[in-house]
C-alpha cells in the first residue's frame, strides 16, 4: 500500500518533530507531576469525606489522577495538538498549498496527530505515571490483558480527540475568531473529559449528559478500562461510534472548506 507508507511517514514525522522539543517535554513532565500531587491531596480529602464516591475507592481515585496527568498531553484535552498549526495554515492561506498535493488532508493531519500523541504518551506520560505508582498506592491491574485493553482504549481516545480538534480547526475557514472558539471548546473538553473530577462523580442529569458526550471517550473511558470499572468491548463500541461520527463530520466540513477555497481562494 503506497499511501499507507505515506501516512506512516507522516506519523513518524509527527512523532519526531515533538521529540525535538526536549526542554518543553521536561517542563511538561514536571508540571504534570506537580498537578498530579495537588489533585491527589484534593481527592484524598474528598474521598475521606465521601468514601466510594462515584464507585471508586481511594486507591482507584488516586490511580485515576495519574492516568489523567499521564494522558493530558496525549489527548490534548487542553489543546496543543496539530490543530493550532492547521488553523494557522488556514489563517495565512498556506492551506491552499496543501490542497494541490496528492494526499488526503484529513488522513494527513490524523497521522501527524497520532504521531504527536504517541510521542506525548512516551515522552510525557510514562514519567508522571511511574512517579505516581512509586509514591502512592495505586489500584493497578496485574494481568497483561487489562493493560493491553487499556492501550486499545487510549488509541481510540486519540482518534476521538483528533476528530474533535479537526472540526474546531476547520471552523477557521468560516470564523474570524476561530481561536476564541477553539479556546472555549478546549476548556469545555478539559471539564467534560473528567480532568478535574471523574465523570462518574457527576450527579443526576448532568452526569448522564456528560457521560454521553464525546469527551467522555477521552480520559474516562480508558481509565475505567484500566480500573476494571468498564467492559473493554462496550467501551470500544462507544469510542468507535464517536470516532466514526466525528471523522465523518470532519470529512464533510473538509469537503465544504475545499469547495470554498477552490471557488473563493480561501
Amino acid at each position, binding site marked *: 500500500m*503506497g499511501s499507507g*507508507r*505515506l501516512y506512516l*511517514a*507522516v506519523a513518524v*514525522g509527527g512523532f*519526531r*518533530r515533538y521529540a*525535538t522539543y526536549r526542554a518543553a517535554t521536561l517542563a511538561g513532565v514536571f508540571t504534570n507531576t506537580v498537578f498530579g500531587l495537588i489533585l491527589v491531596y484534593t481527592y484524598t480529602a474528598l474521598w475521606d469525606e465521601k468514601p466510594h464516591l462515584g464507585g471508586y475507592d481511594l486507591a482507584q481515585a488516586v490511580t485515576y489522577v495519574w492516568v489523567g496527568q499521564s494522558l493530558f498531553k496525549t489527548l490534548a484535552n487542553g489543546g496543543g495538538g496539530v490543530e493550532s498549526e492547521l488553523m494557522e495554515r488556514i489563517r*495565512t*492561506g*498556506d492551506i*491552499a*498549498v496543501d*490542497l*494541490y*498535493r*496528492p*494526499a488526503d488532508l484529513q488522513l494527513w493531519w490524523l497521522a501527524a496527530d497520532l504521531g504527536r500523541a504517541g510521542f506525548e504518551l512516551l515522552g510525557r506520560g510514562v514519567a508522571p505515571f511511574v512517579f505516581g505508582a512509586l509514591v502512592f498506592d495505586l489500584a493497578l491491574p496485574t494481568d497483561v490483558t487489562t493493560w493491553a485493553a487499556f492501550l486499545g482504549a487510549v488509541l481510540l481516545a486519540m482518534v476521538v480527540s483528533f476528530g474533535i480538534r479537526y472540526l474546531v480547526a476547520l471552523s477557521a475557514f468560516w470564523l474570524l475568531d476561530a481561536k476564541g472558539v477553539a479556546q472555549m471548546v478546549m476548556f469545555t473538553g478539559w471539564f467534560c473529559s473528567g480532568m478535574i473530577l471523574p465523570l462518574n462523580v457527576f450527579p443526576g442529569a448532568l452526569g448522564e449528559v456528560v457521560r454521553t458526550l464525546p469527551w467522555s471517550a477521552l480520559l474516562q473511558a480508558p481509565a475505567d478500562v484500566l480500573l476494571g470499572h468498564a467492559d473493554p468491548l462496550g467501551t470500544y463500541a462507544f469510542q468507535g461510534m464517536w470516532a466514526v461520527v466525528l471523522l465523518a463530520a470532519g470529512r464533510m466540513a473538509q469537503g465544504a472548506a475545499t469547495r470554498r*477555497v*477552490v*471557488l*473563493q*481562494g480561501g
Partner: protein
Amino acid sequence: MDEGFIDVKGVEKVFEVRKKAGFLKRERRQVRAVDSISFRVARGEMVGYIGPNGAGKSTTIKMLTGILTPSGGRLRVAGIDPSRERTRLAHRIGVVFGQRTTLWWDLPLIDSYKLMHRMYRIPDGRYRENLDRLVELLDLSELLDVPVRQLSLGQRMRGDIAAALLHDPEVLYLDEPTIGLDVISKAKVREFLRELNAERGTTVLLTTHDLQDIEQLCSRVMVIDHGRMMYDGPLAGLHEAGESERTLVVDLERELPPIEAPAPARVVRVEGPRQWLAFPASESAAPLVARIAAEYPLVDLSVREPDIEAVIAKMYVEQTEKTANAGNAGNAGKAVS
C-alpha cells in the same frame, strides 16, 4: 500536439468580497482578479509572467495548478482540466510559492524529501538519482540535516525548489521565487532554473515583479496588470513597448547645476551633490558615464533598472493614445466620405 502544453483561452476569475459597511451591514463587491486572458506555452518553453502587486499573477498560477476554479474560459495543462483533476495533474506539475513553504518546519530538510518520495510514489531508484542531482545543483548537501526553520530564506527557497522537482514534473510553476532573496541567492536560483530548462527541457512559468529575473532567464515575457494581458512577446519588445528608461544616479563632489547630458538622457532630479539622470533602457550607459566622468567631478555612480510599474504605466499611456488616435482616424475617415 498542435495545442500548447499550457493552453489558456479567455480565462477569468472573479472573487466575491464581502465588506463590512457599518453595523451588521455587509457590502458585496466583485474583484476581477483575472480578466479574460489567453496564452499558450509550448513544451520546453521558459516564460516570464510579470506584473505589479495585485495584478493577478498568483491567481493565474493557482488556476493552472487546479487549486482555484476559473469563473470563465477554458484552461488545459497537458490536456488536463486542472480544477477537475487536481490530483492527477499534481503528479505532472511542480509548484513553488515564494511566500509559502511546503517543507516541514520543525524537521530536517531531508525528512520533507522522504515525504515527497512517498506522496508522489517515486520509484526508489529514481528518487535517489533525482535527490542526488538536485542536492548537487542546488548546493544542499550541508543543509539536509538542518531543521527547515533554521534555514535562511534563500536556503529555504532552494530547498523548496528541490522538493517541487523530485517527482520529475513536466512543468514547474514558480510564484515569486526570488522575492526577498539576497543577490547571491537570486543568482543561484536563476542559474539553476536556466540549467533545468536547457538540460531537462522542463517547461517553466515564472512569476515575478523583478524585471531582472526575466532579463536573465526568459526569452518570452507576458505582462499582466489589473487582470489583463498587456503584452506577450520577447523581452526586447517590452522595453520598446514601454519606452522604459533606466536611471543613472550620480554623486558629484559638490552641489552643481543640473548636468548637461546629451539627449535623450536628461536630469530628472537634483538633491545636493546627487543627481538622477534618465536614459533609454535600450541604450548602453557607458557613453553617458564616460562623458560625465570626463566633464564633472565624479565621486560615485550607480545604474537603476526600470521598475515594472514604470514600464507598465508607460504602456498604458501608449495604448490609450493609440486607441484615441485610431478613433480619430476612423471619425476623420467617415467625415471625408
